[in-house]
């Protein structure tokens, strides 16, 4: 029983956090959004350089051979930085799936930065950046397809987040079936669990960042002759937001530590728990942040609007709040509960 981040894990998180602080500022995101694009090629190359897309791919296949708990800190950091490139999906779902289904060549290309694969899944149906991808990995309920970009029909689905270019996807005749039946169902289920876990992590990152920028703003902005951050009402809003973050974080960490076995019913309940509370924390916090920023919070001049918009996406991707709460409720009714079941796993 060691419920602590290891030194290696912390180093990985710090490294990515520093990278993002230098290469993924909100000023850069604004500039990117103005070009109408959502991916920055140079930033992607740099992340490829660091080996991040293949972090969860085995070393024998050229990846870093890490586990979900090793990257949960960097996913949180990517969330906080509003990273627009599809690192999280590529690292968490796409490349492990290509590896699993023996698509070694494409896997190697993506890890080398020579190809991009977009992703569609019943729980995250709109493929981000599908227009600039070389192929689209399509999870269906009982099929997994790999579709060359040219063969798929993609329809733009404009959304709220300026840094997410979404497309509905219909696979074309050249789509290759990677799995069917039970194998496909297992893969689709696994993808949903990882998707939910990493969406939770990104929202936790967003929540903490939204608090931090609000604290900074409240310390600078004065009204009635003193900083607005000295008013108890704002202090208590932000303190409550911080409480939500503090009690979402250990749930997320525990979920990440269990995520090697996503078939396990305890794991699934904990991932649902993490998705639920991280989503709550992000939404409450983003709203509080807007309130603290006053009119600026309602404009695009301050950065706050980015956080609420990303949260609007992540909350409903990879299973809604409703779905995850119901999954958790079902766990209470079907598995043992009590103080000795906190770290239970099946089998």
């Amino acid at each position, binding site marked *: 029983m060691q419920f602590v981040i290891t030194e290696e894990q912390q180093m990985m998180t710090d490294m990515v956090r520093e990278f993002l602080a230098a290469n993924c500022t909100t000023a850069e995101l604004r500039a990117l959004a103005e070009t109408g694009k959502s991916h920055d090629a140079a930033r992607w190359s740099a992340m490829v350089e660091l080996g991040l897309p293949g972090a969860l791919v085995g070393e024998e296949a050229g990846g870093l051979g890490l586990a979900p708990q090793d990257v949960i800190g960097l996913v949180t950091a990517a969330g906080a930085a509003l990273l627009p490139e599809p690192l999280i999906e590529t690292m968490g779902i796409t490349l492990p799936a290509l590896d699993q289904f023996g698509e070694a060549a494409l896997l190697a290309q993506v890890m080398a930065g020579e190809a991009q694969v977009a992703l569609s899944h019943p*729980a995250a149906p709109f493929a981000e950046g599908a227009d600039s991808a070389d192929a689209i990995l399509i999870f269906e309920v009982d099929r997994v397809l790999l579709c060359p970009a040219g063969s798929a029909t993609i329809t733009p*689905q404009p959304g709220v987040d300026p840094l997410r270019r979404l497309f509905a996807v219909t696979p074309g005749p050249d789509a290759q079936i990677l799995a069917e039946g039970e194998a496909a169902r297992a893969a689709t289920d696994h993808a949903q669990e990882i998707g939910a876990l990493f969406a939770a992590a990104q929202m936790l990152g967003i929540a903490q960042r939204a608090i931090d920028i609000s604290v900074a703003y409240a310390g600078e902005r004065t009204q009635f002759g003193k900083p607005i951050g000295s008013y108890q009402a704002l202090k208590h809003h932000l303190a409550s937001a911080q409480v939500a973050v503090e009690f979402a974080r250990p749930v997320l960490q525990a979920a990440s530590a269990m995520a090697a076995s996503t078939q396990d019913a305890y794991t699934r309940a904990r991932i649902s728990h993490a998705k639920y509370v991280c989503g709550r924390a992000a939404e409450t916090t983003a709203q509080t942040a807007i309130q603290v920023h006053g009119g600026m919070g309602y404009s695009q001049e301050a950065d706050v609007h980015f956080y609420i918009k990303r949260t609007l996406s992540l909350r409903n991707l990879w299973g*809604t709040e409703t779905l995850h*709460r119901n999954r958790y409720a079902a766990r209470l009714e079907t598995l043992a509960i009590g103080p000795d079941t906190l770290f239970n796993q099946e089998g």
Partner: protein
Amino acid sequence: MELTYTDAQRAFRDEVRSWMRDNVPATPLPSFDASREGFEAHRAWEAKLNEGRWGMVTWPDAYGGRGLDLIRWLIFEEEYYGARAPLRVNQNGIFLLGPTLMEFGTEQQKARYLPRMATGEEIWAQAWSEPQAGSDLAAVRAKARREGDEYVLSGHKIWSSRAVYADMAFGLFRTDPDSERHHGLSLILFPLDAPGVTRQAIHQINGEHGFAELFLDEVRVPAENILGAEGQGWKICMATAGFERGLMLRSPARYQVAVRALVALAQSRGDDLDPVLRARVAEAAMGAEAYALSIYSTASRLMAGGRIGAEASTNKIFWSELDIALHRTALDILGDRAELHPGASAAPDAGNWLDGYLFSLAGPIYAGTNEIQRNIIAERMLGMPRK
């Protein structure tokens, strides 16, 4: 209490309904905050409304109204929103400046401004806030200097709603350069196309520009453009803010129509609708109904000679929190399509929920933040100590 409409009130409702059925545009107008085209389309609608004498039914006939009471105003609003008629581009004029002029304006000012307000000939913006005077309105620094028959206005205003396209603005200025805080302020009306006025659009969260920054550099207006006496600005603004938070800023019908759409969205899910979401729909509906009942009750009280007091601050808190909850519920029902714009083909039911949600987030901020409103309730309504 007698909570049924009279025959005359029913007949009035029928009259409004019939006119709206014949005249409300079949396709929604483009937003008045997104383009000049949308703004002018709304101005044309205001003119059309005026043709039916619906500009502001509570105003006297002489100013383009019908001299009706507040219950009829509520019935009008119900039918107006019920018909999904366009939002009122001149709401700053008809709901805020209008009542203020009625109370503090000279006869000349009323005759000069109100009829053109009712017709939409002059669309109004508000120019109170400044970068350093948001919640703390008494920190206003923009100046008005008297020179002969004119005031010369200078300063920097922000969060001026509608000011990107509007014709006129009513602003708060320091007429006494040696004054501090809420002393020495005056309310002055000025044209937005006057020499020396620079407007700069603020991009709001949904990409529209419902607000502008105004840079005023020696803008000259006739001295008669002052509303009330010099130094009365604070008092008049507070009265206006009363209207704002009070009866007229947000029609109850707005939420009742939104709830009707929310119930339809929920019902479209059939048995798939999660019972927790069903409960949240019910709570939103209760909220909309409670707000409407409260406004009817206030209207009855005002008609019996009462006045709006600090309890108006409770309205602002209630509708702004209701608005957020209502729209969040819709987004939660929409699930993974909630992030899509109405134009997205995959979200035929997305409607304007996303935009409405983003807009709702401004509710607890503008027209006095909810923190300020809670201070007012605690100090003025409950009598809790200020310090």
